[in-house]
């Protein structure tokens, strides 16, 4: 089988003035992904290539990078799918480079934490020790289900034109998660979340370019979530307002087996 030309962007901010491209010839094999090609290059051709990966099955979101100019997961991109004999791997845009293909996700996760991506209840005691099982109706689950598939890979954020210019903009991932938890009928902290996003660098800076939805490897549509979130930010009301916990459809907690 022929070789695939793997071009990797190399950059060490402590040593290099600017990034450089290095080419490796990797033997093609059937079903080879870009991650496989990168690991071959690192294991047999150049041990100094830095890349981040873990699950190899598009579950962990670690191997996000720009492949042939488009943000993708390296483990989820077959080399054959890229057409030509040349594969160009670069770090994701909109993130600082730690080394080569490894980017700094500190601010990305910071923004994710800032939107409080967890269920909040007014009654703290009840939240800690629930007296019943809080359930969702199937139609309520349907509204948020796709957003729960987010693996926090950062591809949406790397493709967002607003993130590229506005460092305070939360980005599509954080905003989609804000929508996901605000729409959850078990949550009572929606209004806090909405108030947080109603500022000069908040949800309104999304101009609906839609690139986040285009690149998401899990089929999530963050752009849709953001537009729906805007409606709630405008009214300032979450579907389940604070103190309206009684609206939550609950069923008695199942008896524990002795």
């Amino acid at each position, binding site marked *: 089988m022929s070789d695939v030309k793997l071009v990797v962007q190399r950059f060490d901010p402590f040593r290099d003035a600017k990034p450089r491209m290095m080419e490796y010839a990797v033997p093609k094999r059937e079903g080879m992904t870009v991650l496989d090609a990168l690991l071959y290059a690192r294991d047999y051709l150049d041990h100094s290539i830095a890349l981040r990966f873990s699950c190899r099955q598009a579950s962990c979101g670690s191997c996000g990078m720009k492949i042939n100019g488009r943000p993708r997961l390296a483990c989820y991109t077959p080399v054959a799918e890229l057409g030509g004999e040349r594969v160009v791997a670069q770090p994701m845009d909109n993130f600082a480079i730690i080394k080569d293909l490894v980017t700094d996700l500190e601010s990305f996760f910071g923004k994710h934490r800032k939107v409080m991506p967890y269920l909040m209840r007014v009654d703290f005691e009840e939240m800690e020790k629930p007296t019943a099982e809080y359930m969702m109706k199937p139609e309520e689950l349907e509204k948020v289900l796709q957003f729960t598939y987010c693996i926090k890979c950062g591809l949406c954020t790397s493709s967002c034109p*607003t993130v590229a210019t506005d460092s305070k903009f939360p980005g599509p991932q954080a905003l989609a998660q804000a929508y996901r938890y605000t729409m959850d009928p078990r949550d009572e902290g929606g209004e806090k979340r909405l108030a947080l996003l*109603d500022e000069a660098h908040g949800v309104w800076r999304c101009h609906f370019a839609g690139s986040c939805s285009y690149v998401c490897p899990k089929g999530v549509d963050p752009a849709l979530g953001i537009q729906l979130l805007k409606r709630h930010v405008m009214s300032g009301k979450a579907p389940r307002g604070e103190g309206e916990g009684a609206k939550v459809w609950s069923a008695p907690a199942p008896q524990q087996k002795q």
Partner: protein
Amino acid sequence: MKESRLMLIQYGTAVAAVALVSVHLVMQGVIVPYATAISFSNILSIYRNGFYAIFLEAMLVVVLVHGFNGVRIILHELRQTKPWTTWVDAGTVLAIVVTVAYGTRTVILAVFGGVSA
């Protein structure tokens, strides 16, 4: 003012601007032939029509508020420091007030005879 209120104004003025400018173009390009519409005497008669003077003033306010608020949004994305945000917001309000005042002055002068054909 909350950003959501400002965006509501932005969307409202966008819709209003499309409606007002459309009516204006139909009135001054279709109903009145364009060559006649841009003659000085016709423009003066438009100003002196009370209804149309109010219409022009409304168009002035709507377009300027929408335009300057749009520039404010772009400038906010340019830099993200607190002083920059404050100066951009203050500058936007000032620009709207000054330009609306200057445009209103023109309307008032034309309506009350400060300008003659």
